[in-house]
């Protein structure tokens, strides 16, 4: 079952930028690309825990601000020679509102 919850307006996130949503399981980074696609990933680089929400967003990727690891926003997979996976969460845009799947976050928080 999916329970979409409204976490804010698209305009609250700059294009090619991110904002953080606090959850019980830690921070989730919600990214907005240059084409207004929205992706939600754990705000923690698997390398040294860098805040991905502070990274530079390019195409459908983000570069961690600490050591320049690059991750796919779609899959959470580290790009290039680096290896690592960032948990991703369902996210979508309805009108100008951003929705996250609460059950996903809840299930994880329940686990």
């Amino acid at each position, binding site marked *: 079952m999916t329970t979409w919850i409204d976490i804010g307006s698209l305009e609250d996130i700059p294009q090619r930028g991110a904002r953080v949503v606090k959850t019980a399981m830690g921070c989730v980074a919600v990214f907005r690309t240059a084409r207004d696609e929205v992706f939600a990933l754990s705000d923690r680089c698997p390398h040294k825990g860098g*805040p991905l929400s502070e990274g530079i967003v390019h195409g459908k990727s983000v570069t961690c601000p600490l050591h320049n690891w690059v991750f796919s926003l779609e899959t959470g997979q580290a790009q290039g020679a680096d290896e690592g996976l960032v948990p991703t969460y369902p996210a979508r845009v309805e009108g100008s509102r951003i929705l996250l799947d609460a059950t996903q976050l809840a299930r994880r928080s329940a686990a």
Partner: protein
Amino acid sequence: MTQKLVVIGAGMASGRVLEHLFEAGADYDVTLFNAEPRGNYNRIMLSPVLSGDKTYEEIVTHDHAWYAAHGVACRFSEHVVKIDRDRKIVVGENGEVAYDKLLIATGSAPFIIPVAGKDLPGVISYRDLDDANAMIGAAAMGGSAVVIGGGLLGLEAAAGLKNRGMDVTVIHLMGHLMERQLDPSAGYLLQRELEQRGIKVHCKGATKAILGHDRAEAVLLEDGTVYPADLVVMAVGIRPETRLAVDAHLEVARGIVVSDQMVTSDPDVLAVGECVEHDGQLFGLVAPLYDQAKVVARTLQAEPAAFRPVQTATKLKVTGCDLFSAGDFAEAEGREDIVFRDPARGLYKRLVIERDRLIGAVMYGDTADGNWFFGLIKDGTEIEAMRETLIFGPAYQGGAAMDPTAAVAALPADAEICGCNGVCKGRIVEAITGGATTLDAVRAQTKASGSCGTCTGLVEQVLAVTLGDDFVMPAAKPVCACTELTHEDVRRMIKSQELKSMAAVMQELGWKTSCGCHVCRPALNFYLLADWPLDYQDDPQSRFVNERKHANIQKDGTFSVVPRMWGGLTNPRELRAIADAAEKYNVPTVKVTGGQRIDLLGVRGEDLPAIWADLNRAGLVSGHAYSKGLRTVKTCVGTDHCRFGTQDSTGLGVKLEKALWGSWTPHKVKLAVSGCPRNCAEATCKDVGIVCVDSGYQIGVGGAAGMDVKETERLADVKTEEEAIALTIAFVQLYRENAKYLDRPYKFIAKVGLDWVKARVVDDVANRAALIERFQLSQSVYQKDPWAEHVETERARYVPLANLMLEAAE
């Protein structure tokens, strides 16, 4: 029946005609007139004779034996008085000769500018061996020479005279050297190279008069400059020598007009070489003259042939200057440039493209691919498919046949690599295996590429082939994977094409990704705001987090906060505000930085606007400890307290910091001002370091104390504080406008050279003022406290978008 051919002029063109005729066994009795007391020699090699690399004997093409063997009646040292077309007779000083066919090959005469003193002894032109010998004779006496004309011939003369020990100045009317063959950038590199070899170059110099009583003593320019000159060489150009043809009432425009068959208006009179005009065009380079010679020979044998001029390329033979130009390289609508520069190696390559075809090429420093580019121009090859790597030459185009290294590898050991010094491949390989592993070493041991230098690329390839992976062929490094262009290319095109947005850059320069990456976007953002402060809107999303959040990110994701302390000065009120803020926001670490500031480490991101607001209230602003911009100006206490201080170093430090703060630069910029040579502020390892002395201020630039440690180099010594500030600002602006992103000033200076910097910042006062003006313009936009701005407008961005923990708790 044997016909009588009379040839007037024994130059390279008519010499080639005779070769063709004799090879074909044509039935002619030939009489050859020449005003010079000798036959045909290789005029192109006059410069090596002048510079002493060759002797006259080595450049003779046809000697007496050759003329004798072919039955040529040589009438050397004899001027032709007139051509009598009615009687079909050539009248020489020593008598008449009848002809069935006449070939006029009178060549060209040097153009002498009509100024006072042009006829003084000591003023010579540069056309033939006698001129070269006159220069050699003059050079033997030493002294000064002035060469008027900065074209091919003038520069070769200048280099030759310098080689022979004279003080040489080149006066050139135009804005840059060899303007017909080179664009301004290549002209600049050439000028720099010549200047480094001690040849003075005066561009935009119009000669007013040659001064002297009994002989030339000096050259006076329109702007009043006077250059002493024991020898004046006029090399401003040539014009076709047409006097005989005019007197004979042949059709003459600028040159003797010839048909495609090289026949003049008289069917029995032909003309060839620099004296002719074909289809409105004159000819000065040897390749088309040889083509003409072929046609003349066939016409004389009554065979069909037609002269069709082809494009020509120029290689300059000034020892060591590797220079090539071909085609048309003027800027025009619908034309695009591909440019490659490597300032550190003095390399410059520019290709001009029109409708997917290469139409021009200018190269300086490495011309190995010149002939390949020339081929593309001549053939009109479509270059769309190889456009991205075109400038790197054939080696990057794939296909074994085009790989020059493979071609060099396949050469036999006795293949000649260096024509000037007669060095074959085997000799070079021998030197390399004997330990000469660099170009310089090979040059020193074998002299290969040591003369005209056009074979430098070949020698490098022999090195590459012989050493394999041990030889690193320097290559251009693109900004990132999004583009093939280098930082230097991008900067240049942002300026030249007036690209004022990131989208424009990516579109016009053919970015391969939709919105760049974390490597190129911060660089582009800087280049755009530095070049177009009023037009470009800064893009925070293209900045590294530190510059977006105006604080330094730490390994745990918290931030450090450093307020500005002007010149390292603070007071109890500021210290109290800092102490209060540290307590209020639970700052775990408070530390004094290397730049004399106080660092609050471990501030949570969402607290940043609040702590800034508190610090702002005490008058503290951002210290930019996180930016590629002005960081700190470190000072000592100077004259206020120190018993050794010579000037108010603290006061100057504060003034510099007030002038420079808030400016974005290619990398961080740190300054220091020391009050005396004891240098307590450690100014001699800063990007700009000023050491006060009794007589004023010593300004050093390009110091480093990070991954590299480097002492500053002296930019200038000045007397007043105002000058010290002006020079510092001008230097910073020069660095902002020209450096590669993430190059500290010492790297920038290493690439362009301190002299280049000095010329613009110190020597050229008008340019200094312009730099300062552009800096102030940029400061009018960017000198604002970002903390106050963000507290005001961006506060919301620093807190989480949503807090689901609260909802979960409900």
